[in-house]
Protein backbone atom coordinates (compact mmCIF):
# COMPACT_ATOMS: atom_id res chain seq x y z
CA UNK A 1 0.00 0.00 0.00
CA UNK A 2 2.84 2.40 0.81
CA UNK A 3 4.04 2.25 -2.78
CA UNK A 4 0.87 3.96 -3.93
CA UNK A 5 1.23 6.87 -1.53
CA UNK A 6 3.58 9.81 -1.67
CA UNK A 7 6.75 9.15 0.33
CA UNK A 8 7.17 10.57 3.83
CA UNK A 9 5.94 9.91 7.31
CA UNK A 10 2.17 9.87 7.48
CA UNK A 11 1.02 11.14 10.87
CA UNK A 12 -2.59 10.20 10.27
CA UNK A 13 -4.23 7.32 12.08
CA UNK A 14 -5.07 4.19 10.11
CA UNK A 15 -8.78 3.73 9.37
CA UNK A 16 -9.87 0.23 8.40
CA UNK A 17 -13.01 -0.57 6.48
CA UNK A 18 -14.42 -3.41 4.45
CA UNK A 19 -14.65 -3.39 0.66
CA UNK A 20 -16.63 -6.27 -0.84
CA UNK A 21 -15.87 -8.14 2.35
CA UNK A 22 -12.10 -7.52 2.22
CA UNK A 23 -10.31 -5.43 4.80
CA UNK A 24 -8.81 -2.20 3.44
CA UNK A 25 -6.53 0.10 5.41
CA UNK A 26 -6.91 3.79 4.73
CA UNK A 27 -5.73 6.94 6.42
CA UNK A 28 -7.92 9.45 8.23
CA UNK A 29 -9.11 12.06 5.75
CA UNK A 30 -9.07 9.71 2.74
CA UNK A 31 -12.15 9.42 0.64
CA UNK A 32 -13.40 5.93 -0.10
CA UNK A 33 -12.40 6.35 -3.75
CA UNK A 34 -8.86 7.44 -2.96
CA UNK A 35 -8.37 4.80 -0.28
CA UNK A 36 -9.47 2.14 -2.76
CA UNK A 37 -7.28 3.55 -5.51
CA UNK A 38 -4.30 3.43 -3.16
CA UNK A 39 -5.29 -0.15 -2.34
CA UNK A 40 -5.21 -1.08 -6.02
CA UNK A 41 -8.98 -1.10 -6.55
CA UNK A 42 -9.85 1.37 -9.30
CA UNK A 43 -13.14 -0.28 -10.35
CA UNK A 44 -15.87 1.07 -8.07
CA UNK A 45 -19.14 0.34 -9.83
CA UNK A 46 -20.72 -1.62 -12.66
CA UNK A 47 -22.30 0.59 -15.30
CA UNK A 48 -26.07 0.83 -15.34
CA UNK A 49 -26.84 -1.21 -18.45
CA UNK A 50 -23.71 -3.03 -19.62
CA UNK A 51 -22.40 -3.75 -16.14
CA UNK A 52 -18.93 -2.67 -17.30
CA UNK A 53 -16.41 -1.61 -14.65
CA UNK A 54 -16.20 2.10 -13.93
CA UNK A 55 -14.04 4.11 -11.61
CA UNK A 56 -13.25 7.65 -10.58
CA UNK A 57 -13.51 10.09 -13.45
CA UNK A 58 -13.73 13.63 -12.02
CA UNK A 59 -12.76 13.06 -8.36
CA UNK A 60 -14.73 16.12 -7.36
CA UNK A 61 -18.33 15.02 -7.02
CA UNK A 62 -19.55 15.87 -10.51
CA UNK A 63 -19.68 12.68 -12.55
CA UNK A 64 -21.20 10.04 -10.23
CA UNK A 65 -19.01 7.37 -11.83
CA UNK A 66 -17.57 6.30 -8.48
CA UNK A 67 -20.88 5.36 -6.84
CA UNK A 68 -20.41 2.88 -4.02
CA UNK A 69 -22.76 1.50 -1.43
CA UNK A 70 -21.67 2.53 2.06
CA UNK A 71 -23.57 0.85 4.90
CA UNK A 72 -26.51 0.46 2.55
CA UNK A 73 -26.57 3.97 1.10
CA UNK A 74 -25.48 4.73 -2.46
CA UNK A 75 -22.97 7.59 -2.32
CA UNK A 76 -20.15 9.11 -4.35
CA UNK A 77 -16.91 7.38 -3.42
CA UNK A 78 -14.90 10.53 -4.09
CA UNK A 79 -16.93 12.58 -1.60
CA UNK A 80 -17.42 10.02 1.17
CA UNK A 81 -14.68 10.18 3.81
CA UNK A 82 -13.64 6.84 5.29
CA UNK A 83 -14.93 5.79 8.70
CA UNK A 84 -13.60 2.96 10.81
CA UNK A 85 -15.58 -0.22 10.23
CA UNK A 86 -17.72 1.01 7.34
CA UNK A 87 -19.04 -1.58 4.92
CA UNK A 88 -18.36 -0.58 1.32
CA UNK A 89 -19.70 -2.41 -1.71
CA UNK A 90 -19.35 -1.74 -5.41
CA UNK A 91 -22.18 0.39 -6.72
CA UNK A 92 -24.20 -0.13 -9.82
CA UNK A 93 -25.70 -3.07 -11.57
CA UNK A 94 -25.83 -5.97 -9.13
Amino acid at each position, binding site marked *: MSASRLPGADARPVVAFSFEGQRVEARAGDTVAMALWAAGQPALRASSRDGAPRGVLCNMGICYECLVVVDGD*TVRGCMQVVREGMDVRRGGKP
Partner: protein
Amino acid sequence: MAETADLIVVGGGIVGCAVVQHCAELLPKGARIVLLDRGPVAGAASASCMGHLMVTPDDAQEYAFSATSVKLWAELEEREGGFDYNPTGALYLADDPADVELFAVLQQQFADHGDRAEILDPRQLRDREPGLAHDLPGALFYRGDGVVLPMMACGAMLRQAQKHNPNVDVRPHTPVTGMLRQGDRMLGVQTANGAIHAEHVVNCCGVWAPELAEMAGQPRLPIVPRAGNLAITGHHVTPIQTQLLEISYIRFAHGAAKVDPTRTDDPGGHAMNMQPQSNGGCLIGSTRQFRGMDRTLNKALLHRSLLRAQRYAPGLAHAPIVRTWVGLRPYSLDKRPLIGPWPPLRGLWIAAGHEGLGITLSPITGRLLAEQITGRPTTIDATPYLPARFLR
Protein backbone atom coordinates in the same frame (compact mmCIF):
# COMPACT_ATOMS: atom_id res chain seq x y z
CA MET B 1 -46.93 24.04 -54.95
CA ALA B 2 -47.91 22.36 -51.73
CA GLU B 3 -46.42 19.06 -50.76
CA THR B 4 -48.92 16.19 -50.60
CA ALA B 5 -49.38 13.30 -48.24
CA ASP B 6 -52.08 10.76 -47.50
CA LEU B 7 -52.15 11.28 -43.77
CA ILE B 8 -50.76 13.93 -41.46
CA VAL B 9 -50.43 13.25 -37.76
CA VAL B 10 -49.94 16.35 -35.64
CA GLY B 11 -48.32 15.69 -32.25
CA GLY B 12 -45.39 13.29 -31.82
CA GLY B 13 -46.17 12.06 -28.34
CA ILE B 14 -46.95 8.45 -27.52
CA VAL B 15 -50.44 8.68 -29.02
CA GLY B 16 -49.26 10.30 -32.24
CA CYS B 17 -46.50 7.72 -32.61
CA ALA B 18 -48.96 4.86 -32.04
CA VAL B 19 -51.33 6.33 -34.63
CA VAL B 20 -48.45 6.56 -37.10
CA GLN B 21 -47.41 2.97 -36.37
CA HIS B 22 -50.86 1.48 -36.82
CA CYS B 23 -51.71 3.62 -39.84
CA ALA B 24 -48.43 2.53 -41.43
CA GLU B 25 -49.58 -1.05 -40.91
CA LEU B 26 -53.16 -0.65 -42.16
CA LEU B 27 -52.95 2.01 -44.86
CA PRO B 28 -51.95 0.78 -48.32
CA LYS B 29 -48.21 0.17 -48.67
CA GLY B 30 -46.54 3.27 -49.93
CA ALA B 31 -49.05 5.69 -48.41
CA ARG B 32 -47.34 8.93 -47.43
CA ILE B 33 -47.64 9.52 -43.69
CA VAL B 34 -46.15 12.66 -42.15
CA LEU B 35 -45.70 13.13 -38.41
CA LEU B 36 -45.28 16.73 -37.28
CA ASP B 37 -44.35 18.05 -33.87
CA ARG B 38 -43.41 21.57 -32.90
CA GLY B 39 -40.78 20.17 -30.52
CA PRO B 40 -38.88 16.90 -30.30
CA VAL B 41 -40.64 13.59 -30.84
CA ALA B 42 -41.89 12.55 -27.40
CA GLY B 43 -40.91 15.94 -26.08
CA ALA B 44 -43.92 17.00 -24.03
CA ALA B 45 -46.20 14.86 -21.84
CA SER B 46 -44.58 11.62 -23.06
CA ALA B 47 -41.21 12.83 -21.77
CA SER B 48 -42.54 13.85 -18.39
CA CYS B 49 -44.89 11.05 -17.39
CA MET B 50 -44.62 7.71 -15.68
CA GLY B 51 -44.55 4.57 -17.78
CA HIS B 52 -47.22 2.23 -16.55
CA LEU B 53 -49.05 -0.40 -18.51
CA MET B 54 -52.10 -0.89 -16.41
CA VAL B 55 -55.14 -3.06 -16.96
CA THR B 56 -58.21 -1.34 -15.55
CA PRO B 57 -61.03 -3.79 -14.80
CA ASP B 58 -63.69 -1.21 -13.88
CA ASP B 59 -66.14 -2.61 -16.44
CA ALA B 60 -66.11 -4.88 -19.49
CA GLN B 61 -65.45 -2.03 -21.90
CA GLU B 62 -62.55 -0.58 -19.89
CA TYR B 63 -61.10 -4.02 -19.35
CA ALA B 64 -61.18 -4.85 -23.07
CA PHE B 65 -59.74 -1.44 -23.92
CA SER B 66 -56.80 -1.60 -21.51
CA ALA B 67 -56.08 -5.34 -21.66
CA THR B 68 -56.03 -5.33 -25.48
CA SER B 69 -53.65 -2.40 -25.39
CA VAL B 70 -51.32 -4.10 -22.92
CA LYS B 71 -51.23 -7.10 -25.29
CA LEU B 72 -50.26 -4.76 -28.13
CA TRP B 73 -47.43 -3.49 -25.95
CA ALA B 74 -46.13 -7.03 -25.56
CA GLU B 75 -46.27 -7.39 -29.35
CA LEU B 76 -44.31 -4.18 -29.84
CA GLU B 77 -41.68 -5.48 -27.44
CA GLU B 78 -41.44 -8.72 -29.38
CA ARG B 79 -41.25 -7.05 -32.77
CA GLU B 80 -39.14 -4.00 -31.98
CA GLY B 81 -38.04 -3.67 -28.34
CA GLY B 82 -35.63 -1.06 -27.08
CA PHE B 83 -37.93 0.67 -24.61
CA ASP B 84 -37.20 -1.14 -21.36
CA TYR B 85 -40.44 -3.10 -21.43
CA ASN B 86 -40.69 -4.76 -18.06
CA PRO B 87 -43.77 -6.85 -17.20
CA THR B 88 -43.32 -6.35 -13.46
CA GLY B 89 -46.94 -6.87 -12.59
CA ALA B 90 -48.51 -4.52 -10.10
CA LEU B 91 -48.88 -4.61 -6.35
CA TYR B 92 -51.91 -2.77 -5.06
CA LEU B 93 -51.09 -1.69 -1.54
CA ALA B 94 -53.07 -0.26 1.31
CA ASP B 95 -52.14 1.65 4.40
CA ASP B 96 -55.55 2.49 5.77
CA PRO B 97 -57.19 -0.75 7.08
CA ALA B 98 -60.43 0.41 5.47
CA ASP B 99 -58.75 0.16 2.11
CA VAL B 100 -57.85 -3.49 2.68
CA GLU B 101 -61.41 -4.41 1.76
CA LEU B 102 -60.74 -3.00 -1.66
CA PHE B 103 -58.34 -5.88 -2.42
CA ALA B 104 -61.26 -8.28 -2.68
CA VAL B 105 -63.33 -5.78 -4.64
CA LEU B 106 -60.61 -5.29 -7.23
CA GLN B 107 -59.87 -9.00 -7.30
CA GLN B 108 -63.53 -9.66 -8.07
CA GLN B 109 -63.45 -7.09 -10.86
CA PHE B 110 -60.57 -8.92 -12.53
CA ALA B 111 -62.41 -12.22 -11.99
CA ASP B 112 -65.52 -10.79 -13.67
CA HIS B 113 -63.53 -10.59 -16.89
CA GLY B 114 -62.03 -14.06 -16.46
CA ASP B 115 -58.71 -12.61 -15.25
CA ARG B 116 -56.91 -13.29 -12.01
CA ALA B 117 -55.32 -11.28 -9.23
CA GLU B 118 -53.98 -12.74 -5.99
CA ILE B 119 -54.40 -11.39 -2.49
CA LEU B 120 -51.09 -11.64 -0.63
CA ASP B 121 -50.92 -11.84 3.13
CA PRO B 122 -48.21 -9.77 4.87
CA ARG B 123 -45.72 -12.65 4.72
CA GLN B 124 -46.28 -13.36 1.05
CA LEU B 125 -45.93 -9.66 0.37
CA ARG B 126 -42.63 -9.53 2.23
CA ASP B 127 -41.35 -12.54 0.30
CA ARG B 128 -42.18 -10.86 -2.96
CA GLU B 129 -40.89 -7.39 -2.06
CA PRO B 130 -38.60 -7.48 0.97
CA GLY B 131 -37.93 -3.75 0.60
CA LEU B 132 -41.46 -2.81 1.56
CA ALA B 133 -42.43 -1.69 5.05
CA HIS B 134 -43.04 -4.71 7.24
CA ASP B 135 -46.26 -3.51 8.80
CA LEU B 136 -48.32 -3.49 5.61
CA PRO B 137 -51.58 -5.43 5.71
CA GLY B 138 -50.89 -7.44 2.58
CA ALA B 139 -51.52 -6.53 -1.03
CA LEU B 140 -53.27 -7.47 -4.23
CA PHE B 141 -50.93 -8.70 -6.95
CA TYR B 142 -51.92 -8.49 -10.60
CA ARG B 143 -49.56 -10.13 -13.05
CA GLY B 144 -50.66 -8.39 -16.24
CA ASP B 145 -49.27 -4.89 -15.64
CA GLY B 146 -45.84 -3.54 -16.43
CA VAL B 147 -43.69 -0.50 -17.09
CA VAL B 148 -42.01 0.97 -20.17
CA LEU B 149 -39.89 4.01 -20.99
CA PRO B 150 -42.38 6.11 -22.94
CA MET B 151 -39.81 8.27 -24.74
CA MET B 152 -37.98 5.26 -26.04
CA ALA B 153 -41.28 3.56 -26.86
CA CYS B 154 -42.16 6.44 -29.16
CA GLY B 155 -38.97 5.71 -31.06
CA ALA B 156 -39.81 1.99 -31.21
CA MET B 157 -43.27 2.72 -32.63
CA LEU B 158 -41.82 4.98 -35.31
CA ARG B 159 -39.14 2.45 -36.23
CA GLN B 160 -41.89 -0.16 -36.61
CA ALA B 161 -43.86 2.25 -38.77
CA GLN B 162 -40.88 2.89 -41.02
CA LYS B 163 -40.24 -0.84 -41.38
CA HIS B 164 -43.80 -1.32 -42.63
CA ASN B 165 -43.79 1.74 -44.78
CA PRO B 166 -40.63 3.60 -45.76
CA ASN B 167 -42.78 6.59 -46.67
CA VAL B 168 -43.33 7.47 -43.03
CA ASP B 169 -41.78 10.88 -42.62
CA VAL B 170 -41.02 12.10 -39.09
CA ARG B 171 -40.51 15.83 -38.71
CA PRO B 172 -39.74 17.11 -35.25
CA HIS B 173 -39.33 20.83 -34.59
CA THR B 174 -41.91 21.59 -37.29
CA PRO B 175 -44.77 23.65 -35.83
CA VAL B 176 -48.17 23.61 -37.48
CA THR B 177 -49.13 27.24 -37.97
CA GLY B 178 -52.49 26.76 -39.63
CA MET B 179 -55.11 24.16 -40.51
CA LEU B 180 -56.11 24.23 -44.18
CA ARG B 181 -59.73 23.49 -45.01
CA GLN B 182 -62.10 23.77 -47.91
CA GLY B 183 -65.70 24.11 -46.79
CA ASP B 184 -66.43 21.18 -44.50
CA ARG B 185 -63.36 19.14 -45.34
CA MET B 186 -59.72 19.22 -44.33
CA LEU B 187 -57.22 20.10 -47.01
CA GLY B 188 -54.04 19.81 -44.98
CA VAL B 189 -51.88 21.89 -42.68
CA GLN B 190 -49.66 24.91 -42.95
CA THR B 191 -46.26 24.49 -41.30
CA ALA B 192 -43.40 26.86 -40.70
CA ASN B 193 -41.75 25.18 -43.71
CA GLY B 194 -44.69 25.31 -46.10
CA ALA B 195 -48.10 23.72 -46.67
CA ILE B 196 -48.78 19.98 -46.74
CA HIS B 197 -52.00 18.73 -48.30
CA ALA B 198 -53.58 15.49 -47.15
CA GLU B 199 -56.96 13.83 -47.07
CA HIS B 200 -56.65 12.99 -43.37
CA VAL B 201 -55.26 15.03 -40.50
CA VAL B 202 -55.10 13.50 -37.01
CA ASN B 203 -54.99 15.74 -33.96
CA CYS B 204 -52.79 13.96 -31.38
CA CYS B 205 -51.78 17.05 -29.48
CA GLY B 206 -52.74 15.95 -25.97
CA VAL B 207 -53.27 18.98 -23.75
CA TRP B 208 -52.74 21.16 -26.82
CA ALA B 209 -55.41 19.35 -28.87
CA PRO B 210 -57.97 22.11 -28.17
CA GLU B 211 -55.50 24.64 -29.55
CA LEU B 212 -55.16 22.73 -32.84
CA ALA B 213 -58.92 22.25 -33.10
CA GLU B 214 -59.42 25.99 -32.70
CA MET B 215 -56.90 26.54 -35.48
CA ALA B 216 -59.27 24.56 -37.68
CA GLY B 217 -62.13 26.82 -36.63
CA GLN B 218 -63.67 24.17 -34.40
CA PRO B 219 -65.13 24.67 -30.93
CA ARG B 220 -62.82 24.09 -27.99
CA LEU B 221 -62.31 20.38 -27.28
CA PRO B 222 -63.17 19.22 -23.76
CA ILE B 223 -59.58 18.47 -22.73
CA VAL B 224 -57.84 20.25 -19.85
CA PRO B 225 -54.36 19.77 -18.37
CA ARG B 226 -54.06 17.92 -15.07
CA ALA B 227 -50.61 18.39 -13.57
CA GLY B 228 -48.49 15.74 -11.90
CA ASN B 229 -45.31 16.22 -9.86
CA LEU B 230 -42.71 13.51 -10.23
CA ALA B 231 -39.34 12.59 -8.78
CA ILE B 232 -36.77 10.06 -9.93
CA THR B 233 -33.93 8.53 -7.95
CA GLY B 234 -30.40 7.74 -9.02
CA HIS B 235 -29.45 4.33 -10.33
CA HIS B 236 -29.46 1.05 -8.44
CA VAL B 237 -31.30 2.18 -5.38
CA THR B 238 -34.81 0.97 -6.05
CA PRO B 239 -36.11 -1.03 -3.11
CA ILE B 240 -38.80 -2.62 -5.32
CA GLN B 241 -38.98 -4.78 -8.42
CA THR B 242 -42.75 -4.56 -8.96
CA GLN B 243 -44.78 -1.52 -9.85
CA LEU B 244 -46.59 -0.28 -6.75
CA LEU B 245 -49.94 1.45 -6.57
CA GLU B 246 -51.95 2.55 -3.62
CA ILE B 247 -55.26 0.79 -4.07
CA SER B 248 -56.96 4.11 -3.54
CA TYR B 249 -55.24 5.09 -6.82
CA ILE B 250 -58.04 3.40 -8.69
CA ARG B 251 -60.62 5.76 -7.25
CA PHE B 252 -58.31 8.73 -7.35
CA ALA B 253 -57.05 8.38 -10.88
CA HIS B 254 -60.05 6.99 -12.64
CA GLY B 255 -62.97 8.07 -10.56
CA ALA B 256 -64.75 11.35 -11.15
CA ALA B 257 -62.68 14.38 -10.29
CA LYS B 258 -64.09 15.91 -7.13
CA VAL B 259 -63.33 19.40 -8.30
CA ASP B 260 -64.35 21.35 -11.34
CA PRO B 261 -61.48 20.79 -13.76
CA THR B 262 -61.95 24.14 -15.41
CA ARG B 263 -61.32 26.04 -12.18
CA THR B 264 -57.79 26.73 -11.10
CA ASP B 265 -58.11 26.54 -7.31
CA ASP B 266 -57.86 22.74 -7.15
CA PRO B 267 -55.77 21.84 -4.07
CA GLY B 268 -54.72 18.63 -5.80
CA GLY B 269 -54.40 15.13 -4.51
CA HIS B 270 -52.03 12.20 -4.35
CA ALA B 271 -51.99 8.43 -4.60
CA MET B 272 -48.74 6.54 -4.42
CA ASN B 273 -47.45 5.04 -7.63
CA MET B 274 -43.85 3.83 -7.87
CA GLN B 275 -42.12 2.23 -10.79
CA PRO B 276 -38.79 0.44 -10.81
CA GLN B 277 -36.58 1.45 -13.75
CA SER B 278 -34.32 -0.90 -15.64
CA ASN B 279 -31.26 1.12 -14.56
CA GLY B 280 -32.18 0.48 -10.95
CA GLY B 281 -33.75 3.85 -10.41
CA CYS B 282 -37.21 4.39 -9.07
CA LEU B 283 -39.84 6.75 -10.45
CA ILE B 284 -42.03 8.24 -7.73
CA GLY B 285 -45.53 9.65 -8.24
CA SER B 286 -48.20 10.56 -8.47
CA THR B 287 -50.12 13.73 -7.87
CA ARG B 288 -53.03 15.30 -9.70
CA GLN B 289 -54.00 18.94 -9.82
CA PHE B 290 -55.92 21.16 -12.21
CA ARG B 291 -54.13 24.46 -12.57
CA GLY B 292 -53.95 25.22 -16.26
CA MET B 293 -50.67 24.96 -18.13
CA ASP B 294 -48.57 25.85 -15.07
CA ARG B 295 -45.56 23.54 -14.92
CA THR B 296 -43.87 24.87 -11.81
CA LEU B 297 -43.29 22.32 -9.10
CA ASN B 298 -45.93 22.11 -6.39
CA LYS B 299 -43.61 21.40 -3.48
CA ALA B 300 -46.35 20.47 -1.05
CA LEU B 301 -47.72 17.82 -3.41
CA LEU B 302 -44.25 16.56 -4.30
CA HIS B 303 -43.45 16.22 -0.62
CA ARG B 304 -46.60 14.24 -0.07
CA SER B 305 -45.52 11.97 -2.88
CA LEU B 306 -42.06 11.40 -1.40
CA LEU B 307 -43.47 10.91 2.08
CA ARG B 308 -45.99 8.31 0.94
CA ALA B 309 -43.30 6.54 -1.07
CA GLN B 310 -41.17 6.33 2.07
CA ARG B 311 -44.11 5.06 4.04
CA TYR B 312 -44.35 2.04 1.74
CA ALA B 313 -40.63 1.66 0.95
CA PRO B 314 -38.69 3.09 3.90
CA GLY B 315 -35.35 2.58 2.10
CA LEU B 316 -36.25 5.44 -0.22
CA ALA B 317 -35.57 7.96 2.55
CA HIS B 318 -31.84 7.77 1.80
CA ALA B 319 -32.21 7.32 -1.95
CA PRO B 320 -30.69 10.17 -3.94
CA ILE B 321 -33.27 12.15 -5.89
CA VAL B 322 -31.80 13.17 -9.21
CA ARG B 323 -34.62 15.15 -10.73
CA THR B 324 -38.07 16.53 -9.97
CA TRP B 325 -40.48 17.87 -12.55
CA VAL B 326 -44.06 18.46 -13.59
CA GLY B 327 -45.93 16.85 -16.45
CA LEU B 328 -49.37 17.67 -17.82
CA ARG B 329 -51.97 14.99 -18.43
CA PRO B 330 -54.67 15.60 -21.04
CA TYR B 331 -57.82 15.15 -18.98
CA SER B 332 -61.02 14.63 -20.93
CA LEU B 333 -64.06 16.09 -19.23
CA ASP B 334 -65.98 12.80 -19.29
CA LYS B 335 -62.82 10.86 -18.41
CA ARG B 336 -62.81 8.92 -21.65
CA PRO B 337 -60.34 9.67 -24.44
CA LEU B 338 -61.45 11.07 -27.78
CA ILE B 339 -60.66 8.64 -30.56
CA GLY B 340 -62.21 8.92 -34.02
CA PRO B 341 -63.49 11.33 -36.63
CA TRP B 342 -64.61 14.86 -35.91
CA PRO B 343 -67.80 14.87 -38.00
CA PRO B 344 -68.15 18.62 -38.59
CA LEU B 345 -64.93 18.62 -40.60
CA ARG B 346 -64.41 15.67 -42.92
CA GLY B 347 -60.85 14.35 -42.82
CA LEU B 348 -60.18 15.68 -39.31
CA TRP B 349 -59.54 13.00 -36.71
CA ILE B 350 -58.79 13.16 -33.02
CA ALA B 351 -56.81 10.88 -30.75
CA ALA B 352 -56.30 12.66 -27.45
CA GLY B 353 -57.50 13.05 -23.88
CA HIS B 354 -56.14 9.91 -22.19
CA GLU B 355 -55.28 11.63 -18.90
CA GLY B 356 -52.98 9.34 -16.93
CA LEU B 357 -53.43 6.26 -19.10
CA GLY B 358 -51.96 7.56 -22.33
CA ILE B 359 -49.01 5.18 -22.21
CA THR B 360 -51.16 2.14 -21.47
CA LEU B 361 -53.78 3.02 -24.05
CA SER B 362 -51.70 4.40 -26.91
CA PRO B 363 -51.38 1.15 -28.93
CA ILE B 364 -55.11 0.39 -28.89
CA THR B 365 -55.79 4.05 -29.66
CA GLY B 366 -53.52 3.89 -32.69
CA ARG B 367 -55.19 0.65 -33.71
CA LEU B 368 -58.75 1.94 -33.37
CA LEU B 369 -57.98 5.10 -35.27
CA ALA B 370 -56.20 3.27 -38.10
CA GLU B 371 -59.12 0.85 -38.33
CA GLN B 372 -61.59 3.70 -38.54
CA ILE B 373 -59.60 5.61 -41.14
CA THR B 374 -59.34 2.52 -43.33
CA GLY B 375 -63.00 1.58 -42.81
CA ARG B 376 -62.24 -1.70 -41.07
CA PRO B 377 -64.22 -3.25 -38.25
CA THR B 378 -62.66 -2.17 -34.95
CA THR B 379 -60.79 -4.55 -32.63
CA ILE B 380 -63.03 -3.54 -29.74
CA ASP B 381 -66.13 -1.40 -29.57
CA ALA B 382 -64.93 2.11 -30.33
CA THR B 383 -68.25 3.88 -29.80
CA PRO B 384 -67.60 5.08 -26.24
CA TYR B 385 -64.56 7.02 -27.45
CA LEU B 386 -66.03 8.71 -30.51
CA PRO B 387 -65.44 12.45 -30.21
CA ALA B 388 -68.90 13.05 -31.67
CA ARG B 389 -70.36 12.40 -28.22
CA PHE B 390 -69.39 15.94 -27.32
CA LEU B 391 -71.37 17.36 -30.24
CA ARG B 392 -74.68 16.23 -28.83
